[in-house]
């Protein structure tokens, strides 16, 4: 058979599996151990004093190591939000839902999460929310320990007070 008569080879099978034993690093491990105890831990930059949550052991603005551990609240204020209507195969949240940046009390950078527990058209910048944790016996070193954030009913934080964090 000539090459012209043969069909081109359109696929080959090359099974590939690599196993990695990943570890979270020092700062993130401490953060995740805190989550397993129902606490949220951040780290403060020794130069600009910003508190990072979750911490990665460094301040990316100042390029210095962060060592001082800071307890931050599991309550905070919505800095920005989006109402998500496109499904994600990897996300087990009914559509539509609100994904939010929450500025936790005591932190300087927002925390990424979702909001449940109120009509979506009520979600707004400045709204006060609190973490909804899983049952205490199901707490584990994973962000799945926080199911979502939900409104606290406290008065909104005025936009002007949030400006510097946007």
């Amino acid at each position, binding site marked *: 058979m000539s090459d012209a008569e043969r069909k081109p080879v359109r696929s080959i099978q090359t099974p*590939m599996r*690599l196993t990695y034993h*990943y570890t*979270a690093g*020092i*700062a*993130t491990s401490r953060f995740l151990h805190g989550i397993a105890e129902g606490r949220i831990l951040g780290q403060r930059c020794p130069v600009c004093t910003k508190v990072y949550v979750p911490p*990665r052991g460094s301040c990316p603005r100042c*390029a210095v190591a962060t060592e001082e551990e800071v307890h931050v609240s599991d309550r905070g204020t919505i800095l920005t939000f989006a109402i998500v209507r496109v499904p994600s195969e990897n996300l087990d949240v009914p559509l539509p839902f609100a994904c939010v940046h929450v500025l936790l009390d005591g932190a300087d950078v927002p925390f990424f999460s979702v909001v449940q527990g109120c009509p979506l058209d009520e979600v707004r910048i400045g709204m006060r929310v609190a973490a909804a944790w899983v049952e205490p016996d199901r707490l584990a070193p994973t962000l799945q320990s926080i199911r979502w954030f939900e409104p606290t009913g406290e008065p909104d934080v005025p936009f002007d007070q949030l400006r510097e964090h946007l």
Partner: protein
Amino acid sequence: MREVAIVSFAQSRHARRDLRNEVEILLPVVQEAVQRSGVERPFDFTCSGSTDFLQGQPFAFVLALDAAGAWPPIAESHVEMDGAWALYEAWVKIQTGQAETALVYSFGKSSPGDLPEVLSRQLDPYVVAPLWPDSVSLAALQARAWLEKSGRSERDLAAVAARSRRDAKGNPHATVAGDFAIDDLLDAPYLASPLRKHDCAPISDGAAALVLVAGDRARQVCERPAWIRGIDHRADLHALGARDLTRSASTRIAGEKAGVARRPVDVAELHAPFTHQEYILREALGLAEDTQINPSGGALAANPMMVAGLIRIGEAARRIHDGSARRTVAHATSGPCLQQNLVCVLEGE
């Protein structure tokens, strides 16, 4: 050609397994290199080398930027290669006149994965990689061919390992160091004959950083700048069967272009992750008998992937910084069986 010098160098303590994340490993190293350089941030250019395949974490090189001081946004680039090639890019950038100072760093965390298996993924994806030839087995093919051709013995290989580990006793960054009798080493079983464990570089996690400065500014910030007098890199054919594995044509040409033979070489830091490769590299570079080879212990003492080549350049620069050498040569390799090679000639004044 614009004069460019290495004015500072720093490296981590290269552990078999470092539980810190890439930024936690890198940050103190970058800070040390920056502080020693006497150059204020921001650098005109920053270039890094790493590969996410090692730790199995996508975009680790982006996360690592947190250690570089990337705010306000900096001029930055990354190579999926050993940091020695990041240094080359930074050197070119300075040659173009677009930069006077550059920060170069690299990091490698091999411990989360199975390194020899991971390295098989760099081979031809259709006809070679599906057979999973690991890096040690490929090096063993090369070693066998080289032993046969050179008439050398496994004892000669063990001698390189023993010397490297002994020299590494003076290197606080080494993963493996100590006194080992050649006979004891030869008693060990083969990993892939003719290679035993001591013939293979250890698996290490680590990072390194250095600072490049052009012209008179280098003389202002550094007492004895390590001037890059020649630098070149070349690649051999990727098809292993199409190469003469017993010699390194790309190293030979890179060495000629970099001007290695122009004057005597006090110290050569050769990136040979396997013992037999040191002999191949020595021959390719035409190094004299009195050139001291790998006083740091070389890659056989510490081999953080994507870093060990940059460390060779840093170690060669360090000898000039401390005044113990006048002219040094550094070599870096990447790919299977010495496929890609970079040669850098450093001189003091």
